[in-house]
């Protein structure tokens, strides 16, 4: 009797992934705790649909940066230049749009290309010239910011054309939000069932049906809740949808593709990775290019949301992104981390900013609290490892 209990537990553990992500679950719990505290402290104003919508929009920039950063960190590298890169690409997009009257979408496209090129620049120095990433990207931090100040001549560039403003400020209508939700639900059901089918085809052990059903139910609940709450205000913000899509795409890349597996291998043990036939230099180059692309995404989004580009845009954003990745479970020694965790980390940071400004606490406290949360998150991880 006891024995069968134990095996059932094992099955649940193994197939639900519960045992693997303790770190992440503590983080989600911490997030919930932070939300409860702010909700109580603000007499419920923190969890109004309006504020949740704002909070999610505040998360987008750090969230997108963190998605790229966590990849770089998993590979055992660091990128300090993304804040400046964000500022520069956002600035270039705005200059093209405002000063040269270029179409918004074309300006954005050019900015994204420049983001990739600057990322390749970083990556080339790191991978093919063997300069440590810390130094290369510290140089990038200075150089990119310098170029931004130079080309903008110190002006704030505004206002943008309406098509440019659209991506940062638009909302889905409630009905299209629900349609999207229904599509997502069907997709989830299809993916789960399809995975069961192929597993069965290969004669592999299947998780009990009820676990999969439970997973589907939970996902449907959260998708529904998410859209329902945001529709109570205006609708799902387009920028938040972009963040979610990027998160899903890069989560998939990191966990399901050859490229992702290799990134983890390089961060885990670069020597072994080389001997396993992995082209470490090429992958490092691609990683920095991807990070440049994501920083440009964030730059464009920030510029669009603020309807302006300024020389100080994105200052210290690289530190927020690193903190978000680490809070979300990444380790600076490489080999560990998840995209989902990094986005949760960004949400934690944004929650603190948002909640504390609602409480009218002086801004300096936000720095102190965020710093302490970072410190404690890593400390908790350290003691849980030593156990």
């Amino acid at each position, binding site marked *: 009797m006891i024995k069968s209990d134990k095996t059932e537990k094992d099955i649940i553990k*193994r197939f639900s992934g519960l045992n*693997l992500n303790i770190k992440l679950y503590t983080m989600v719990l911490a997030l919930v705790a932070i939300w409860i505290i702010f909700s109580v402290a603000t007499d419920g104003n923190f969890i109004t649909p309006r504020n949740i919508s704002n909070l999610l929009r505040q998360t987008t920039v750090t969230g997108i940066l963190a998605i790229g950063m966590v990849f770089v960190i998993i590979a055992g590298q660091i990128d300090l230049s993304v804040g400046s890169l964000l500022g520069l690409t956002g600035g270039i997009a705005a200059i093209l749009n405002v000063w040269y009257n270029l179409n918004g979408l074309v300006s954005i496209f050019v900015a994204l290309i420049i983001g990739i090129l600057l990322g390749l620049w970083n990556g080339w120095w790191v991978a093919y010239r063997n300069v440590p990433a810390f130094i290369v990207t510290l140089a990038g931090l200075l150089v990119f910011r310098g170029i931004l100040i130079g080309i903008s001549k110190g002006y704030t560039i505004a206002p943008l054309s309406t098509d440019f403003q659209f991506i940062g400020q638009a909302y889905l209508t409630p009905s299209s939000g629900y349609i999207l939700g229904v599509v997502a639900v069907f997709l989830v059901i299809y993916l789960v069932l399809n995975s069961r089918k*192929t*597993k069965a*085809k*290969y*004669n*592999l052990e299947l998780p009990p049906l009820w676990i999969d059903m439970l997973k589907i139910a939970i996902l449907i609940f959260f998708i529904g809740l998410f859209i329902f709450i945001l529709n109570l205000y205006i609708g799902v913000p387009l920028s938040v949808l972009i963040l979610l899509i990027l998160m899903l795409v890069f989560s998939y*890349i990191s966990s*399901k*593709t*050859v*490229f992702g*597996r*290799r990134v*983890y*291998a390089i961060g*885990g*043990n670069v*020597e*072994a*990775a*080389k*001997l*396993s*036939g*992995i*082209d470490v230099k090429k992958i490092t180059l691609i990683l920095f290019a991807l990070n440049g692309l994501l920083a440009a995404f964030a730059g464009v989004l920030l510029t669009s949301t603020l309807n302006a580009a300024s020389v100080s845009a994105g200052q210290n954003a690289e530190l927020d992104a690193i903190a978000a990745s680490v809070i979300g479970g990444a380790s600076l020694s490489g*080999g*560990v981390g998840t995209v989902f965790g990094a986005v949760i980390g960004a949400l934690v940071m944004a929650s603190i900013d948002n909640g504390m400004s609602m409480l009218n606490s002086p801004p300096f406290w936000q720095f102190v609290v965020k710093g302490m949360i970072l410190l404690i998150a890593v400390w908790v991880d350290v003691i849980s490892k030593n*156990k």
Partner: protein
Amino acid sequence: MSEYILEMYNITKEFPGIKALDNVSFKVKRGEIHALCGENGAGKSTLMKILSGVYPYGTYSGEIFYNGEKLILHSIRDAERKGIAIIYQELALIKELSVKENIFMGNEPNKNGIVDFDQMYINAKKILQQFNLDIDPNTLVKNLGVGQQQLVEIAKALSKSASLLILDEPTSSLTEADVEILLKILKKLKENGVTCIYISHKLDEVMEIADTVTVIRDGKTIGTDSAKNLTKEKIISMMVGRELSQLYPREKHFIGEVFFEVKDFNVYDTKIQNRRIVKNVSFKLRKGEILGIAGLIGAGRTELVSSIFGSYPGKWTGDVYLEGKKIIIRNPSDALKYGIAMVPEDRKKEGLISLMSVKENMTISNLENYKKNLIGTINENRELLDVKDYIKKINIKTSHFSTQVKNLSGGNQQKVVLAKNLLSKPKILILDEPTRGIDVGAKYEIYKLMFSLAKEGISIIMISSELPEILGISDRIIVMHEGEKKGEFENKNVTQEMIMQCAIGGRSNND
């Protein structure tokens, strides 16, 4: 004073889920060399970590008496103060510092807090001379060979006037010559009244120097006896709990034609230009043949094979022919494409990604084969089938394929590295010290596997520093000395002495 310098009674130490030590008792007489034997994972290292303060008092149960007094240690520092020094399998020297600084690390001779380097030099010199070690105390440790580093480590322990010295696998990375020096030093230390606990897999050494032998298995003491009453075979059977009829399960296999050839290989030092580590080495390999490469450490064996495999960081020249055609291998990825796989010497550093699972480690060099679309999605079902297949085939003992590989024992880790290389379906498998630091049982299984691969027609190049292994496994043997190929033997009536002669520089051939 009691006859025993150390008495450990009923020591039990538990880790989450495992009882690493179960009521172990262990007594060491004053002034003896006491060998502690057991398979990997038997609990030897855990026991020694308790004794040296790594696991402090209170984290285990049981009692320890040292010089008749109850021993309570809160840190490694405590143990050192009592005269207990431990030398680990992995070297704990700081490579960028000099020999003298390493020896006196933590107790530097000083005046008012300012280090007296002259005094340090003189003291270091004295200690080194005591053991006829011709090492300049000002040399940086990184410029010493592994063997000399090990000796420096011992000098370091002695500078702290240790009266109980624990050596954990001290010879696992030493050449025969360095082993000789080490054993001599240990005998000399014994004359000076130092007590020694000697942990080793190498039973020849144990039989040579130990006065007493204790065997532990699965966290329990199996027995303690005077070395005179024991034989190698007896110790092995105590260690593995079964009689090993044969250490080397030689099996007949068909050997085909020459199909791989290495010509005029020269490998250059990564630091000193124009210094050749491998000099004009050529050899041939036949299909299904096991070619042993013997030699002392520093003979250039690892450099030779890593150059062939494309992973050597420095410059090399030479030609490689596969099935009569010249091939060019620029990096490991090229080598794998041609069907050449290599299991590197240093499993932890170069073979395994310890944070990753057994499954992920096994398929990492072979992921291309599991791509199922253009963006490179891994077909995880197919991957899993292969992984399960190999776990079964080569008997990897792991609770689950998603277990992190760092939680496996040394032997099973090595099997994971082997599986990884076999999954790439190689024609040639290079094994660099394939059984280093793994226990007798796992060794036996790896030998078995090598023979079954040879039967399938896979050719194997095996580097080994253990002569019995070279003789027990190889079909043909080449011997290297200071970068040159000094000898080549068909493995018939070859003796360890013949190979040793060759490895230290004398030329000889039997065909």
